[in-house]
C-alpha cells in the first residue's frame, strides 16, 4: 500500500478553512489537503492496549467535513450498508453543529462509535467517494469513518440522547445473539415500540465486538456504553442463555409468549484444516485465542483475570484476514517476542484491510508468504514445536479473482513455533438449526436460509440475519441485516402475513 502521507494542518489553516466553507467551489475542494489523524507510535502502542489512531479534534473533524463536495450522486450513501445520509451529516459537522450531525447519523446507525472504528470504509463509503475517484486513491476520500467515530465519542462525552421510542405495541420479540446484527435489530424494534429481549450465550453482550475484536481496535467501554443506551431504550438483556440448549425457538414462541424471533447467532464455528497434530497444545483457533485475550482478559492473567493463555516465544498466525491481523497484533501486545503471519498467497491477495496489515507490520509482525501448513509436530508433552510448511506459487485467478496458490511439489520446509493461531475463517454455528425443526439451512455452508429482502426463514415468525445467514462477514454487513430485518419484523407484527412455502426463499 502507499505510505500514508501525514501532513498536518496548523490550527490557523483549519480555522480558515472552516470559516470560508461556503465559498469553496468543487475545484477548490479537490485541491484541499486531507486532514490526517495522528496515531500512537508503534513502539508505544505495542506496550499498551489503547487505540492506535487518536481521535480527530473538533476543528480537525470540521475541516475534514468541509472537503465533502455534497455531490448529487451520493455514492457514499449507497455504499453504506445502513445508508447513513453522509453528506447531510458532514455538512452539519462542517457547521460545527455536532449535536445535529449526531442526530442525522443516528437516524440510521445506532452503533456509530463501533462502526466508525471497525467498518472497512475504504471498500464501502470512502471507496466510492468522489474524492477517491478524482484522485484515483481511496486514501484521498473524505474520512467519513473517522468523523463518524469523532461524533459518537463527542456525543458520549457531551450527553447521549436516548432515542425516543414509539408507544408500546404490546408485541414481544426475542433477539438471539447480542452481536452487531442482534443489537441493531433490537434498537430499531425498541424504537418502533416493541418489547425486545436479547438472549446471549456468553456472560456479556456484544458478540464479536467483545470476544473477537481486540481492545486496541475497539475499546470495550465504548461497546458497553452503546449497549447501555439500548438498555435505556427498554431493551432487556438475558445473558447466559444458549438458545437451542437452555430454551428452544419453539418454546420462545409457544410458551414464553414471543411474537417473533430474530436469529443472529453469528459465525461461531471455527474452521480447522484437518492436519496431523492440529490438536497439539498451543494450536488455537483464532476464536479461542482472541476470546481468551479479549472477553476473558487473559492479558491481565494473575492480577485481575484467571483465564490463562499460552506464554509464547515464537507464534505463527495462519491466515491473511482481519481476524488473523487481530490475532497477530494481540500476540504482540501479550509480549510475544516473535510473531509471524503464515499466508498461502502474497500480501497483495490478503483479504485483511490495508490499514490492519500496515499496522501489523509497523508493530513488528513478520510475514511468511506463499506457504501453508501441512502438519504440526510436538514434543513428548504434547506441545507444538514446529510446523511443516508447503511452499506455494501463484497460479491462475480463482472465483474470487485472486490468483490461486499452487503447491510447489516437494518444497516443504520446517518452521519452529511454540504457538499457532489458526485463522482461516468460521462457519455457521449449528446449535440452532439442529434444535429447530423445519428451519432450512444451506447444505454446504450450514447457514440459515433466508430471502435477503425480508430476512424470513422457512419457519413462520422466525427471522435471521448477520453471519448466521452468510458465513463470516463484516460488522456493518451484520448491522445492515439487523436493520432491514427489524423493518421486516415490524411489518410482520403489524400484518401477521407470512409468505407461503417457497415464496420467501
Amino acid at each position, binding site marked *: 500500500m502507499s505510505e500514508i502521507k501525514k501532513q498536518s494542518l496548523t490550527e490557523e489553516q483549519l480555522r480558515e478553512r472552516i470559516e470560508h466553507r461556503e465559498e469553496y467551489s468543487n475545484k477548490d475542494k479537490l485541491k484541499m489537503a486531507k486532514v490526517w489523524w495522528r496515531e500512537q507510535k508503534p513502539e508505544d502502542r505495542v506496550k499498551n492496549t489503547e487505540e492506535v489512531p487518536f481521535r480527530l479534534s473538533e476543528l480537525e473533524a470540521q475541516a475534514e467535513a468541509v472537503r465533502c463536495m455534497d455531490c448529487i450522486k451520493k455514492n457514499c450513501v449507497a455504499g453504506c450498508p445502513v445508508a447513513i445520509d453522509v453528506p447531510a451529516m458532514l455538512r452539519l459537522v462542517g457547521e460545527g453543529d455536532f449535536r445535529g450531525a449526531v442526530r442525522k447519523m443516528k437516524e440510521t446507525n445506532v452503533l456509530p462509535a463501533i462502526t466508525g472504528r471497525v467498518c472497512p470504509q475504504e471498500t464501502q463509503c470512502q471507496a466510492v467517494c468522489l474524492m477517491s475517484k478524482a484522485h484515483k486513491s481511496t486514501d484521498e476520500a473524505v474520512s467519513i469513518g473517522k468523523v463518524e467515530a469523532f461524533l459518537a465519542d463527542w456525543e458520549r462525552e457531551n450527553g447521549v440522547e436516548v432515542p425516543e421510542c414509539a408507544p408500546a405495541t404490546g408485541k414481544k420479540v426475542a433477539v438471539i445473539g447480542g452481536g452487531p446484527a442482534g443489537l441493531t435489530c433490537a434498537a430499531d424494534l425498541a424504537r418502533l415500540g416493541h418489547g425486545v429481549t436479547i438472549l446471549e450465550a456468553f*456472560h456479556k453482550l456484544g458478540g464479536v465486538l467483545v470476544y473477537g475484536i481486540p481492545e486496541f481496535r475497539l475499546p470495550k467501554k465504548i461497546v458497553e456504553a452503546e449497549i447501555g443506551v439500548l438498555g435505556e431504550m427498554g431493551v432487556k438483556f438475558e445473558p447466559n*442463555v444458549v438458545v437451542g*440448549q*437452555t430454551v428452544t425457538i419453539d418454546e420462545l414462541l409457544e410458551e414464553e409468549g414471543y411474537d417473533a424471533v430474530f436469529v443472529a447467532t453469528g459465525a461461531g464455528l471455527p474452521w480447522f484444516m484437518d492436519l496431523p497434530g492440529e*490438536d497439539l497444545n498451543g494450536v488455537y483457533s483464532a476464536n479461542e485465542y482472541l*476470546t481468551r485475550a479479549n472477553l476473558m482478559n487473559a492479558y491481565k492473567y*494473575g492480577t485481575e*483475570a484467571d483465564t490463562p493463555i499460552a506464554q509464547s516465544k515464537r507464534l505463527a498466525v495462519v491466515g491473511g484476514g482481519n481476524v488473523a491481523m487481530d490475532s497477530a497484533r494481540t500476540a504482540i501486545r501479550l509480549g510475544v517476542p516473535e510473531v509471524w503471519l503464515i499466508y498461502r498467497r502474497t500480501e497483495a491477495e490478503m483479504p485483511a484491510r490495508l490499514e490492519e496489515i500496515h499496522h501489523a507490520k509497523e508493530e513488528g509482525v513478520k510475514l511468511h508468504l506463499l506457504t501453508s501448513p501441512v502438519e504440526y509436530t510436538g514434543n513428548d508433552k504434547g506441545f507444538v514445536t514446529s510446523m511443516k510448511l508447503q511452499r506455494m506459487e501463484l497460479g491462475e485467478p480463482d472465483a474470487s479473482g485472486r490468483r490461486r496458490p499452487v503447491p510447489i511439489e516437494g518444497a516443504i520446509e520446517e518452521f519452529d513455533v511454540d504457538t499457532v493461531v489458526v485463522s482461516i475463517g468460521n462457519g455457521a454455528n449449528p*446449535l440452532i438449526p439442529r434444535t429447530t425443526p423445519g428451519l432450512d439451512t444451506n447444505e454446504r455452508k450450514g447457514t440459515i436460509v433466508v430471502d435477503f429482502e425480508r430476512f424470513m426463514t422457512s419457519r413462520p415468525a422466525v427471522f435471521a440475519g448477520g453471519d448466521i445467514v452468510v458465513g463470516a462477514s463484516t460488522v456493518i454487513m451484520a448491522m445492515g441485516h439487523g436493520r432491514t430485518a427489524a423493518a421486516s419484523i415490524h411489518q410482520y407484527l403489524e400484518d401477521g402475513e407470512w409468505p407461503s412455502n417457497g415464496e420467501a426463499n
Partner: protein
Amino acid sequence: MAKILKKKTIADKITWYELDAPRIARKRKPGQFVIVRPCEGGERIPLTIADADPEKGSITLVVQEVGKTTAYMGRELEEGGDMLDVVGPLGTATHIPDTPGRILAIAGGLGIAPLYPILKGFKEKGHEVTVILGARSSDLFIMREMTEALVDKVLICTDDGSEGHHGLVTEVEKQLLESGEKFDEIIAIGPAIMMKFCVETARPFQVPITVSLNTIMIDGTGMCGGCRVQYGGADKFVCVDGPEFDGYQVNFDRMMQRQAAYADQEKKAYHDYLCRLEAKAQQIEATEKEGAVS
C-alpha cells in the same frame, strides 16, 4: 446470576452447591453440564449437573477443589450469595435405550456426581444397574447412600483397602467381566486415566463402553474449539458433540496432555491464591489482637 440456595462441604475439599437455576433445572437431561463463572475476572469452568429439581427450579453441582477457581468457590462463595454466571444445560444428553438392559457403571472419586443423574435415567427406564464405586479411602466416598438406594448393586473399592476391594476399579471390572457376567453397556466416569484403563479392560470383552470427558472449555457452544479431542481419527468438540463418547474411539493420552496445557500457570495461580488467603487471615488475626489490646 444464580442464587446459592445451599452449600455444604461433603468431604475434604469437596463442596455441594444447590443453585437457583429454573430454566436449566427444567431442561437438563442426564449427562449434560453447565459452565460457571464464579466472579468478575473469573474463569469459565464446565461442571456436570449432579442432580436437578425442576419444581423447585434448582440444580446441584458437586465440585472438588483442584485450582484457584474451585478454591475460590469453596472458600469464598457463601450460601445465600450468588454464583455470578451459570449457563446451560450444555452438551448432548446420555443415550438411554428404552429396552431395559444390564448396565455396569464405574465411578472413580468425584465421578459419581456426574454419573448419578445418568444412573437415575437408566433406572427410570427399568435397566438393571451395577455400580463400582472407587475412592482413595472409605471415608472419602460421596453420594454413596443415594447411589446405594438407587441402583441394584454397589461394589466398593478403595486404594488403601479400608473397605471393599483393595485396589483399582479396573480390577473389579475385570473380575466381573471374566466371571461371565453379561453387560449391555459400561459407563465409566472419573479421572481420564481411570477411564482410559476402564476402556482397556473392557476391550477384550467387546462390551460397548461410554465415557464422559471433562476438557478445558470457554464458551461451551462450539465456538472456540478449545475442548477438541482426537476421536476415531477426527477431532470432536466435547462441548457440543459430547461430553459422552464411545470410549474405544477416544485418544485419552492426547486428551490428558490437553488437560494439562496450562498446568504450570494453574499451579502458580492456585498457590498464589492460597498465600493471599493466608496473608489475609493473618492480617485479620493481627488486627483482632490489636483490638483486644487497646
